[in-house]
């Protein structure tokens, strides 16, 4: 496959199909809609042919993906915040059924950080959340999402937004290097019926041939798995933190604006650094704590009323003051492309909290 100018939605669909995604179900909703369109266009003609269902609701979309996953196929769904809210009950159960669901969240800005990292579903569950900075990284993280989902038998969310879905970049979908995965011995294909060894893809902890359930042991086993994921799957990008007096934390597409400004300020001699969590869960708290070791101040730029800042504060643990320099900023449609997404404004906000600069603010 060659380098081609692609809208983010198309690039993610291409990448998913290249990663072996054979089933997609979704319900149209801005800014997720184009992703569904591209899957609908590309999946039936893929090799081997896949299926894309324009589901009648988000509840049905996630249910269909659930059924496809249970047969061992790579499958995905997606939406934006409101639609994902409708899917939460299934997200919880799919996590308990240990199915490798990939969720494309084309969020309306960054107000859904809590939804993505805490979830709104019932019970103790966790999803790996990958937040690409741009389309090029989205192509890689989409493939990684399918790999990690299978690796851990756990849902993985790709947190994008309007910018990621609707802007275009010249990208090439090249396969990422990953470790081999074990066969899906748990998947149902109907073939074991009557053998005494039929299978049960079950979120309640019910097992074939055994009466009743043992929820405490089952939930503890899942909690143990989530602890292992938390310990091993943190991903982070950090730049110029070694001698930084101010470290700015940002994620997703707005981080690209922040990174640009940080590099510019560095060239001008300011001792500023930058940390970008690539996994929103597990949050790379250890890496962040190391990065801010010598910082006199930590600033968080996120386009919301303050959500990721909670995780930043937990990581920094009082070692330095943590200040919010982002805020709610959106266009009239509410899709999150606000006036704050502007390097001049971001530069002004970062400069305002530079240690020693307060008097000029």
């Amino acid at each position, binding site marked *: 496959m060659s380098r081609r100018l692609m809208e983010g939605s198309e690039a993610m669909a291409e990448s998913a199909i290249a990663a072996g995604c*054979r*089933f997609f*179900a979704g319900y149209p909703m801005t800014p997720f809609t184009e992703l569904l369109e591209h899957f609908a266009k590309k999946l039936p003609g893929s090799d081997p042919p896949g*299926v894309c*269902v324009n*589901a*009648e*609701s988000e*509840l*049905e*979309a*996630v*249910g*269909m*993906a*659930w*059924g*496809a*996953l*249970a*047969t*061992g*196929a790579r*499958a995905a769904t997606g939406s934006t915040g409101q639609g994902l809210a409708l899917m939460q*009950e*299934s997200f919880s*159960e799919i996590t308990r*059924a240990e199915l490798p669901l990939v969720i494309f969240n084309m969020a309306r800005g960054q107000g859904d950080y809590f939804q993505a990292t805490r979830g709104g579903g019932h019970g103790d569950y966790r999803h790996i959340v990958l937040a690409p900075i741009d389309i090029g990284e989205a192509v890689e993280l989409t493939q990684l999402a399918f790999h990690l989902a299978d690796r851990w038998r756990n849902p993985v969310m790709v947190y994008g937004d309007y910018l990621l879905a609707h802007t275009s970049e010249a990208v090439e979908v090249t396969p990422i290097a990953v470790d081999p995965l074990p066969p899906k011995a748990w998947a*149902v*294909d*109907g*073939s*074991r*019926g*009557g*053998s*005494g060894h*039929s*299978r*049960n*893809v*079950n*979120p*309640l902890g*019910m*097992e*074939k*041939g*055994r*009466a009743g359930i043992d929820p405490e042991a089952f939930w503890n086993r899942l909690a143990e798995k989530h602890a292992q994921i938390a310990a091993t799957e943190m991903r982070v990008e950090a730049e110029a933190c070694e001698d930084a007096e101010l470290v700015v934390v940002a994620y997703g597409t707005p981080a690209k604006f922040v990174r640009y400004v940080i590099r510019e300020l560095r060239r001008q001699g300011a001792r500023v650094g930058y940390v970008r969590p690539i996994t929103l869960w597990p949050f790379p708290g250890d890496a962040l704590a190391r990065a801010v070791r010598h910082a006199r101040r930590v600033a968080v730029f996120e386009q919301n009323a303050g959500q990721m800042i909670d995780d930043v504060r937990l990581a920094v643990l009082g070692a330095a003051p943590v200040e919010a320099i982002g805020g709610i900023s959106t266009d009239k449609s509410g899709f999150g492309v606000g006036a704050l997404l502007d390097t001049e404004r971001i530069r002004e906000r970062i400069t305002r909290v530079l240690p020693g600069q307060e008097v000029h603010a």
Partner: protein
Amino acid sequence: MSSDVFLRTDTPPTVPAQKVGAFKPGLLLHESHHLCPGCGEPLAVRMMLEAIQELGAAQRTIGVVGIGCYTTFSGSLDVDVIQALHGRAPSVATGAKRMRPECLVFTLQGDGDMVNEGLQEVIHTAARGENVTCVLLNNGVFGETGGHMTATTAIGQRTKTSLDGRDSAYHGHPILIGDLLAQLDGTAYAARGSVHNAAGVAQVKRMLRRAFETQLHGEGFSLVEVLTMCPTGWFVPTAQGPGYMNEVLGAVHFTGELKADGTLVTTRELIAAAERRAAAQQQRADAEGT
């Protein structure tokens, strides 16, 4: 539909006579369950397993089980199972069937699961002509929670949330889900049976076979609604379960095939035809008496 009424007696039966209660169905791993005495669900499930086995489909069957008393079978059916959420089984079945079109895919749902929580799912699955079979165990009550009103509860039926009986002015009307789904173009077969007596049990099995054959022939969506006893949830003595069901639920959710070979028959028409038959019978009896 007449084939359901008449049994051929001029040739020996193809299957030798057997004691129905004397053995465990082949596609059951163990007989442990937490269902109440007098429950009709095991009967319906038994007929379903026998139908699958008779069609030689056991090695290519995927069942999607909803949430209700029958969820206990998720662990004991010896066919591949996906356990779904309450109401969501038809969508899960859709995803499974699309990835495994060679499999026989069925859902097992109660009336609370299919007609309350998951009504939209089953309607869209039928409208899509999804090549799956939905099996409804309809007892007109939320059995697992202890006897509460569902969308199929008959007018006058007492439940914990309709203590003086379901009143249409206050609680609304029951949904005839079979009729609702039969009229959709994507539905190839729809039938309603009842396990209140031996003839009913045998008819349920024929309906299940027919539905599964419809799916295996790739004809589209199929539904088999089975009325099942729930004496616990109805607050009637166990032995009165079958009679109560036939009188109360059976009068509303009248049994028969609602769609087969492209012919649509409404429940109202089934009732009218039964009334005509009864009247004719009465007339004959009167004539013979005189």
